[in-house]
């Protein structure tokens, strides 16, 4: 039996790929997946002062079928882990995951010897593209994370890097 060949291995649509990547990066639709404190900073990032609408990402979709990127904002619990995995599986390709906050990266402040409830990092469940440290990270950090994801998609960074004074 022949091995199936993926079209992207034999055919490259250079400009079309770039255009698709640019359009995906310009309108990343996040899944509303705020679990805990980081969710409030995610909402603040969608609020008027920080405004991720400038980057096309303000359309938070409640349904995983309609979302591109899952921003895991908060602590993942053993009880919740099944639900998170189900949501990830329900999202359609291409999909990305941003782990926002220390809890999503590695369990955060809730890791101690003898802990029984927290999954130490969402990358133990499925692959993560961007990690945003902080407890909670500032909305500007979340926006920088989204811009890094855009850079990962398109290969180049479209917005200037902010240099602290």
């Amino acid at each position, binding site marked *: 039996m022949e091995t199936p060949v993926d079209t992207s291995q034999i055919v490259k649509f250079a400009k079309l790929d770039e255009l698709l990547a640019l359009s995906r990066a310009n309108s990343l639709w996040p899944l509303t997946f705020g679990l805990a404190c980081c969710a409030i900073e995610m909402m603040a990032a969608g609020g008027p002062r920080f405004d991720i609408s400038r980057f096309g990402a303000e359309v938070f979709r409640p349904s995983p079928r309609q979302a591109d990127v899952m921003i895991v904002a908060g602590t993942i619990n*053993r*009880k919740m882990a099944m639900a998170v995995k189900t949501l990830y599986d329900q999202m359609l390709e291409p999909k990305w995951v941003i782990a926002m906050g220390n809890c999503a990266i590695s369990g955060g402040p809730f890791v101690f010897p*003898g*802990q*029984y*409830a927290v999954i130490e990092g969402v990358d133990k469940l499925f692959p993560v593209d961007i990690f945003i440290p902080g407890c909670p990270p500032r909305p500007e950090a979340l926006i920088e994370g989204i811009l890094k994801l855009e850079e990962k998609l398109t290969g180049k960074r479209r917005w200037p890097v902010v240099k602290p004074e």
Partner: protein
Amino acid sequence: MDGAVTTPADHAAKGYDLDVALAAGGVVAAAEYLGGIGFSLDTMTGVDWIAQNEMEVVYDYFHPASPLRIVVRTRVPRDNPEVPTVSGVFPGANWHERETHDFFGIRFAGHPNLTPLLLPEDADYHPLRKDFVA
């Protein structure tokens, strides 16, 4: 109430005014009495006194119209902890008792639904016991 040891306490130093220590069988009567004079159940706390081989259940009561706070406590043996439920008097105790059962394994006789509340549905461990190993 039989066997009740009542100790007044200084609110400024302890946070409550009256401490009532009872046998486990008396908690329902205490709840009914306090409920009758207008108190509300604040919370229930389990404490694992492993050194004395006992478990303690502490009921905190508050009153919506006065600063009085009353604490009712009872001790049960650690290897067979069972306390009658007060959820007939205070339906809010339903969740408190499920949580105390989750954390300590204390059984509340007569509780309609003593299933895990905070732990996963199939959890069979009691994490706040002092001999708990994850």
